[in-house]
């Protein structure tokens, strides 16, 4: 059994860990609110963008000549996966959930004998993937320096992707991120951005409208689609950051509670050993006195 001194040290060390996790939870809670606000503020832009694109798609008469970003290259051989994770750890299952989702997708692609290319955004994703998929990772991006998520950063990622597409380095592009549902639940998502999936298309009455286009539809589309990719990535980044903070908050809350339980258990053990030591001493004294 551990000595009294050891127990004392254990207790104080658990207590200081508890202090840290508690502080981290507070910080995450404060950041979460802001991240959530940002994610909500960012929604109108991506929604409007989506609407306009859907309206445009309706207006396009000849699907054959539509930009490649929209209809794809016609092949599905090379898959590019953009795995978006956080730059910091200690946020529960946040990163592993995305990675798990991505890995099962990777396996499917490799089983189908297709070529896989990976871009990681955020250093944690790279750390986890480099063990198994090092040869497939063609680029790693990290925004450790920028404190807040801004559109400029996501635009950079978007430009890299478009650049690679233009060079015909891949046919299909999918992004992986966590969608923020609430503080406890984050849903890992895979979303195909090139070619644009039309399954989400919702026909509503506004589609009856006839739009004027200036310049021509094709030209607007080719201008709009790259922007849409940046916007989708930006949306994913916003959702990710809200999820990260939410996930961290829950994880740290659990850690604080666990630490509390551990302190209680250790304190009981400490008191018991102390009691035992006292009893032992008394017995020694008494039996010493009796033998005289």
């Amino acid at each position, binding site marked *: 059994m551990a000595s009294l001194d050891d127990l004392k040290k254990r207790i104080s060390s658990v207590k200081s860990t508890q202090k840290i996790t508690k502080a981290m939870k507070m910080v995450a809670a404060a950041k979460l609110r802001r991240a959530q606000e*940002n994610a909500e*503020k*960012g929604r*109108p*832009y*991506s929604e*409007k*963008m989506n*609407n*306009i694109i859907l*309206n*445009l798609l309706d207006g396009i008469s000849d699907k054959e000549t539509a930009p490649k970003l929209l209809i794809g290259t016609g092949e599905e051989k090379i898959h590019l996966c953009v795995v978006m994770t956080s730059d910091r750890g200690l946020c529960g299952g946040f990163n592993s959930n995305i990675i798990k989702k991505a890995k099962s997708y990777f396996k499917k692609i490799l089983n189908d004998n297709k070529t896989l290319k990976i871009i990681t955004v955020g250093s944690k994703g790279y750390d986890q993937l480099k063990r198994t998929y090092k040869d497939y990772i063609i680029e790693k991006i990290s925004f450790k320096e920028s404190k807040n998520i*801004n*559109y400029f950063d*996501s*635009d950079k990622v978007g430009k890299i992707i478009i650049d690679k597409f233009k060079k015909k380095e891949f046919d299909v592009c999918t992004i992986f991120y966590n969608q923020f549902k609430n503080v406890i639940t984050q849903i890992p998502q895979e979303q195909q951005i090139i070619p644009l999936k039309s399954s989400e298309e919702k026909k509503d009455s*506004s589609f009856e*409208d*006839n*739009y*004027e*286009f*200036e*310049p021509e539809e094709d030209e*607007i589309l080719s*201008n*709009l689609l790259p*922007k849409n990719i940046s*916007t989708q990535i*930006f949306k994913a980044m916003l959702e990710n950051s809200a999820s990260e903070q939410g996930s961290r908050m829950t994880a740290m809350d659990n850690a604080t509670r666990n630490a509390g339980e551990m302190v209680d258990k250790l304190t009981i053990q400490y008191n018991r050993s102390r009691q035992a030591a006292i009893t032992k001493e008394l017995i020694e004294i008494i039996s010493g006195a009796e033998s005289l």
Partner: protein
Amino acid sequence: MSNSFKLEIVNPEKSFLSKEDAIEVVVPAFEGDMGFLKDHISIISFLKPGLLRVIDGTATEETYYVEDGIIEFKNNCLSVLTSNIFDIKKMDKNKIRDILTEAEKDSQNNDISDQAKYLIDQKIEVLKSLTLN
């Protein structure tokens, strides 16, 4: 107001401006400036760098500098999606000059498309006129 329409300017981070009583909005569309009044036909177009003017019900005029974006007019609602928009009044000369020198640097770059070149030239022109005022 009977002759007003709704104006919404959003950028990726937030809703930048929202007005219920816009009377006239002039946007720098790609093929030339375009003025919007109530009951304009539904249209989608995109922007080049330039000045966006808003006149609202109180007859005050506000001017914004935009770099790019898409506009959509539908059912008397004008939506402007842009990633770069600045209020002219809040923009100081140094900032304008910064963007200008950046743009001039870009225009030296020869391996860009004609369209990109055209946009950069537009940008320089607008910024220059801003620095003069």
